[in-house]
């Protein structure tokens, strides 16, 4: 989220692609409604389903799943044709918009109507309304990302915003609504297969920086791995780890340091809500050891037929421990401990520490919490400190190390102060009042220094860097094919000493760029660049000059290191429009994609799926639950609201198959899996589509597995997991499953 929920109140137009905040972020949605009331803001919703959000919209387009790119190109086509783009902004701050213009020219409203199913009139109406009401904010969520072209979708949306000059403005921006409460934070913390914390990546240099910051030798870390090369390769992802498990039948090649997976440790992750449940079950069944740490019984434990070595550990809930959480707008809050862990449960970190002790790396593992930066840019163990305090010392360790996204200012003390004084902040801007003046609520990152107040809106050049202003990041060189990649003259954060674009700040270039001279001590103390500068001198100097440490560059519309340099439409692997597949084919199959060969074109071209499986299937969230839903299904009042799994189906479609409201039906996937669910008539879906929530588990392909729960742990509601029938398909870059565009066949049960 580049801006914040409160900031949406400043929008003149809100366009939502594939998100349903009224259901998924109900409290956040109040800011949308207030924008409508206070600001006469126009709410536009583009979704395959008439959602609760759509019910509040001024304009709504019912789009075919997986065709957001054509829709947005259609919008750009109209924008460019009418000259509605912000030319000055594009010239000064965007690289490669001409290529977008070329592609957009192909997507006339008529072509878009054919591909997306949205009438040309509606597209024109929406584009006009959105382009004429600025600033406009663009919202998206899983509706854009969960596609084979998810990455392209998420590039397309900012491009649309860039063309209209909506990026980096209050009331504008691309506001991605994150799902789980700390998915932003956990991602920032690099709980990922392809990066170290803080998006440092997996390059040797990054490992060396972290080794140093953690107080261990780089060689020590290398020794833990098979060899150094495996440190720099992506691991298995949540989406496809099962492919790597021993004895799992698959023709997809695995490259995992010469071994299959034999053990799985899951800490608070509802893996019964991930695509390809049948394969996940196969993966679980073939493990040597399965460890599940969760406050409730992770339903993977009852899904698997594995008879031995399944450990379930009672982890404490987040209310029984404390720590920092990051909301969707990048702001930090302190989650105080409410009660001591109930029953025998233990907080996650204690389980990890206990395991680390038994595995022999506890001291090295926790050493980072005992360290601090010295003034001369070195790291040292805090004199006299032998014990750490959880979580404050960990918070400070993170603040000390993660500089890429500017977490330097996120010390435990500051974040706690914000949470303690949450009444001192403004609802709309997040600006502090009284004693908290000069800071924004939760210090939204980048929070460059220990005194910086946070940056509520990313890429906003209308305010000084010290107050959260910045240009676009310089991350990909200074020029490409002879075109300047830095911002043009005149585009810079307010109050900057440099009134043009500039590169990211390094020890080498700081004197030249800022026009200053560093003293010898300073030079000796500071690191190679701002990202690894323990002394903080580089960032400090930048602040003094009103300069953003990461540079001031152009946003890239062209990404030359991705398979599609500009976002291109590609049909879903299982497309209902077989006639369009040849024109917009999927990617070539990709070897070693997070350690496993992943298929694209070979699946798409294998058969004409639409013949046998003519119905679109979309999945989504219910307001009553989140994620795999276990914690909500284990709450009695919530479970009573949605006691069973269901399928929203249009009466016309249902009656064609003889399915009555409230009776059971089968949903079959092209992979041969099936689920038995209750039909629920709904007009929110078109007659060629069904919708199912993804929060249920406990049943598998028609059989009740809830008997596998240990006594007294069965949740109050159970049902089929829709992800048993969501189709094969993974994003080309992130490997997110394609669950928002798939096909199925239904029949009466």
């Amino acid at each position, binding site marked *: 989220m580049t801006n914040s929920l409160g900031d949406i109140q400043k929008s003149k137009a809100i366009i939502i692609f594939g998100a349903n905040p009224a259901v998924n972020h109900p409290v956040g949605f109040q800011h949308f409604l207030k924008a409508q009331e206070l600001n006469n803001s126009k709410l536009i919703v583009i979704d395959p389903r008439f959602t609760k959000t759509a019910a509040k919209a001024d304009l709504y387009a019912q789009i075919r799943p997986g065709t957001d790119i054509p829709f947005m190109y259609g919008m750009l086509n109209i924008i460019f044709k009418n000259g509605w783009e912000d030319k000055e902004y594009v010239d000064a701050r965007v690289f490669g918009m001409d290529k977008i213009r070329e592609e957009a020219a192909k997507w006339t409203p008529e072509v878009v109507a054919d591909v997306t199913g949205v009438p040309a009139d509606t597209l024109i109406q929406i584009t006009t309304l959105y382009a004429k009401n600025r600033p406009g904010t663009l919202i998206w969520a899983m509706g854009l990302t969960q596609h084979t072209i998810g990455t392209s979708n998420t590039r397309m949306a900012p491009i649309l915003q860039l063309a209209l000059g909506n990026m980096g403005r209050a009331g504008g921006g691309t506001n991605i609504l994150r799902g789980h409460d700390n998915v932003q934070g956990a991602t920032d913390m690099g709980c990922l297969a392809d990066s170290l914390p803080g998006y440092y990546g997996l390059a040797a240099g990054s490992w060396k920086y972290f080794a140093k910051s953690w107080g261990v030798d780089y060689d020590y870390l290398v020794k833990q791995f098979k060899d150094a090369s495996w440190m720099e390769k992506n691991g298995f992802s949540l989406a496809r780890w099962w492919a790597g498990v021993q004895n799992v039948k698959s023709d997809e090649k695995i490259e995992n340091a010469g071994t299959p997976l034999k053990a799985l440790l899951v800490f608070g992750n509802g893996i019964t809500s991930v695509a390809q449940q049948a394969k996940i079950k196969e993966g679980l069944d073939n493990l040597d050891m399965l460890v599940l740490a969760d406050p*409730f019984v992770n339903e993977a434990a009852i899904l698997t037929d594995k008879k031995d070595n*399944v450990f379930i550990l009672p982890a404490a809930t*987040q209310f029984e421990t404390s720590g920092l959480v990051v909301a969707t707008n990048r702001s930090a809050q302190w989650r*105080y401990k409410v009660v001591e862990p109930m029953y025998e449960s233990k907080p996650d970190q204690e389980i990890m520490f206990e395991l680390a002790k038994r595995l022999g790396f506890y001291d090295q593992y926790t050493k980072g919490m005992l360290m601090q930066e010295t003034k001369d840019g070195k790291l040292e163990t805090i004199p006299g400190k032998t014990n750490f305090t959880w979580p404050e010392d960990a918070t400070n360790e993170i603040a000390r190390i993660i500089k890429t996204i500017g977490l330097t200012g996120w010390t435990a003390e500051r974040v706690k102060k914000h949470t303690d004084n949450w009444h001192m902040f403004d609802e709309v801007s997040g600006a502090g009042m009284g004693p908290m003046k000069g800071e924004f609520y939760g210090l939204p990152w980048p929070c460059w220094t220990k005194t910086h107040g946070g940056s509520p809106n990313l890429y906003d050049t209308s305010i000084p860097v010290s107050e959260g202003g910045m240009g676009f990041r310089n991350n990909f060189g200074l020029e490409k094919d002879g075109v300047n990649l830095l911002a043009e003259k005149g585009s810079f954060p307010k109050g900057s000493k440099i009134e043009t674009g500039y590169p990211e700040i390094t020890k080498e270039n700081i004197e030249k760029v800022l026009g200053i001279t560093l003293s010898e001590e300073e030079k000796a103390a500071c690191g190679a660049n701002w990202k690894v500068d323990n002394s903080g001198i580089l960032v400090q100097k930048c602040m003094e000059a009103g300069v953003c440490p990461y540079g001031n560059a152009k946003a890239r519309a062209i990404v030359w290191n991705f398979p599609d340099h500009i976002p291109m439409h590609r049909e879903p692997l299982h497309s209902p429009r077989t006639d369009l597949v040849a024109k917009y084919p999927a990617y070539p199959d990709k070897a070693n994609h997070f350690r496993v060969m992943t298929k694209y074109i070979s699946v798409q071209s294998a058969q004409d799926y639409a013949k046998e499986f003519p119905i679109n299937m979309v999945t989504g969230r219910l307001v009553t639950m989140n994620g795999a839903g276990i914690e909500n299904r284990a709450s009695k009042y919530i479970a009573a609201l949605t006691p069973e799994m269901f399928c929203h189906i249009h009466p016309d479609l249902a009656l064609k198959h003889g399915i009555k409201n409230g009776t059971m039906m089968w949903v079959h996937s092209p992979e041969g899996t099936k689920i038995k669910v209750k039909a629920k008539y709904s007009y929110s879906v078109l007659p060629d589509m069904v919708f199912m929530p993804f929060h249920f588990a406990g049943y598998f392909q028609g059989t009740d597995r809830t008997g596998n729960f240990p006594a007294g742990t069965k949740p109050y509601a159970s049902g089929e997991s829709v992800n048993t029938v969501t189709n094969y398909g993974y994003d080309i870059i992130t490997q997110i499953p394609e669950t928002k565009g798939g096909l199925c066949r239904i029949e009466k049960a």
Partner: protein
Amino acid sequence: MNSETQRALSTTVGRRSFLKMAAIAGAFGATSSFAGENVTRAATEEEVKNPFPGSKKVKTICTSCSVGCGVIAEVQNGVWVRQEVAQDHPISLGGHCCKGADMIDMVRSEVRLKYPMVKENGQWKRLSWDDALNRIANKLKELKSKDGADAVQFLGSAKMSNEQAYYFRKFAAFFGTNNTDHQARI
């Protein structure tokens, strides 16, 4: 639109009416008799008092979604007795959806997993923490030495705090594999 209206709009049942209501309730407390017809009844004489004596209020954050709503938990003798309204939280303004309003029920749920267990020969068996951790660690050690650290997959959580998520990633790094991920992938 003048600023007065702006404020009225933005705060809905805002602090002003909130206080007004508190004042009304206070007035009731202070009045001993309610001369009413037979349908009304004399209010019990009582002051505005705390139904949970000695309780303390803990500010914390909802775990349901990324909006980051404020939760005020009322705790008495180590028991979470009531969920209060975080009226002045700048994002949620006291609001909760059904999940957020039910956080207390989630924590106090009777169907929580209460102690470590292991499945052996298809039967669930209770374990002590020590046993469980020893057995898990031994298996991990064995796998690491025999097959390499990459034989193990770690899946962390977007429900963890930053510190936990960071230490989860760090755990995988110290164990020696990049096979670690979490829900951001779905």
